[in-house]
């Protein structure tokens, strides 16, 4: 990465990708691209214009409203905004992505549907990562069915 900073005076820096990310100059491409593709899928699925207008089908909260308030509207938002929330959650929890700890004794059955959607959402991401768009479309339909049901 080569940067030419012209303000206040011309200064050249030569950074590796990691250092450039630390300096806040770039967001690592691999990360960005995955999210971008996934966002395309979400856009396609919900028929909305972009991340900002993305709304949860259950509670109606938009991602933009979440960004303003810092609070989500319902448990389903974790599914509806999964692609956008995942990097935020990772940053907030020292890279933690998976729950390690207590599991409620009886609640499991009632949240089975939610769990199913989250699992499919991960499969969707995998399919996109592997550029297996046929599988991605199938998984997307499964998610839609679960959400409606």
């Amino acid at each position, binding site marked *: 990465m080569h940067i030419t900073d012209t303000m206040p005076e011309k200064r050249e820096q030569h950074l590796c990708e990691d250092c450039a990310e630390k300096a806040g100059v770039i967001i690592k491409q691999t990360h960005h691209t995955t999210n971008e593709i996934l966002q395309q899928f979400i856009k396609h699925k919900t028929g909305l214009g972009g991340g900002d207008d993305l709304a949860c089908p259950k509670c109606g909260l938009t991602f933009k409203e979440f960004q303003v308030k810092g609070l*989500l509207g319902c*448990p389903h938002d974790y599914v509806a905004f999964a692609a956008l929330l995942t990097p935020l*959650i990772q940053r*907030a929890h*020292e890279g933690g992505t998976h729950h*390690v700890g*207590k599991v409620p*004794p009886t609640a499991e059955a009632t949240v089975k549907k939610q769990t199913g959607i989250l699992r499919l959402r991960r499969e969707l991401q995998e399919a996109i990562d592997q550029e297996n768009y046929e599988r991605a479309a199938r998984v997307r339909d499964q998610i839609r069915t679960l959400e409606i049901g």
Partner: protein
Amino acid sequence: MTLDDLTKTTGEWLRGVGPMSDIVVSSRIRLARNLAEHPFLTTADAGQRTEIYRCLSQAITTTSPGKDDLLVDLETADVIDRNVLVERHLISRQHAAAEGSRGVTVSPNETRAVMINEEDHLRLQGLRSGLQLEELWAEINDVDDSLARDLAFAFDRRLGYLTACPTNVGTGIRVSVMLHLPALRLTKEIERVARAARDLRLAVRGLYGEGTEAIGDLYQVSNQTTLGKSEEAIIHTFSETIIPNIVGYERTARETLARHHESQLDDRIGRAYGVLCNARRISSGETQSLLSPIHMGIQMGRFKEFDLHTLHELFLYTQPAHLQKMQGRSLDEDQRAVARADYIRKRLAPK
């Protein structure tokens, strides 16, 4: 039990007992929980909010650990009563000042308080004096289990307990320890300790949590990471490493003061006592700042004019809402300054 009964004692967190209680004032653990089938409070309408409140207040007061708890409906409670609960560390300032259907249940000994409809549907909190995190976890975990038998909490296998703010997702746990660190402030080492704690991804805050100052040299240290670590692992790090380390630094700083700055230390304690005994007007902030060196003096065996119990009474009953509660009427800031100084002088007058 009524709210008035609670105010007759200084409550659990000011008992001054438990491990490391020379420096650790109190320990707190809270768990954030939400009902799976309801929206979070951000989007819940008034009807849904009332329904959540009704369902949860009933569940808590009918399960075995909570059946003797006092339920306070904060929507209808008087402003002084709400602030009494804040000063007793049973509810947050936000919960006191909010609007709509909301409340709190408090156990008779005040070791447990459950906020309903705060940021999350439920905030289960355990509170004890000294460093007693394992005991607290056992109590709060038990309450959580009892409630989960009847209620379905929003939970996902990968993300854990789902909370209104993604920073609490996972275990939903916040472990928070309140420390009295006057010597670290006097030796100007407090910023270094706070920075080290922040580097470990811990939050260091003042007496009343987020955005408050460290009045009376009281600091709250709490975890910020809730995903990817178990409740036990987080608690263990606090009990075995973080808190013993900070306590060690404060004890060393106290020894340094006693060895190299003895007259300054006793002067500070003596002057604080002098002002408290003679002031005719005093703010609650000044009172707490003056009680801080005396608190340290008592713990170091350098102050014998009154004991820890009196100190805790002075600490709690001079705060605005407790003062007004004692006087049985609402007072403005000016009237409070006079009433507070009167109360302190009477409390410290030779018997």
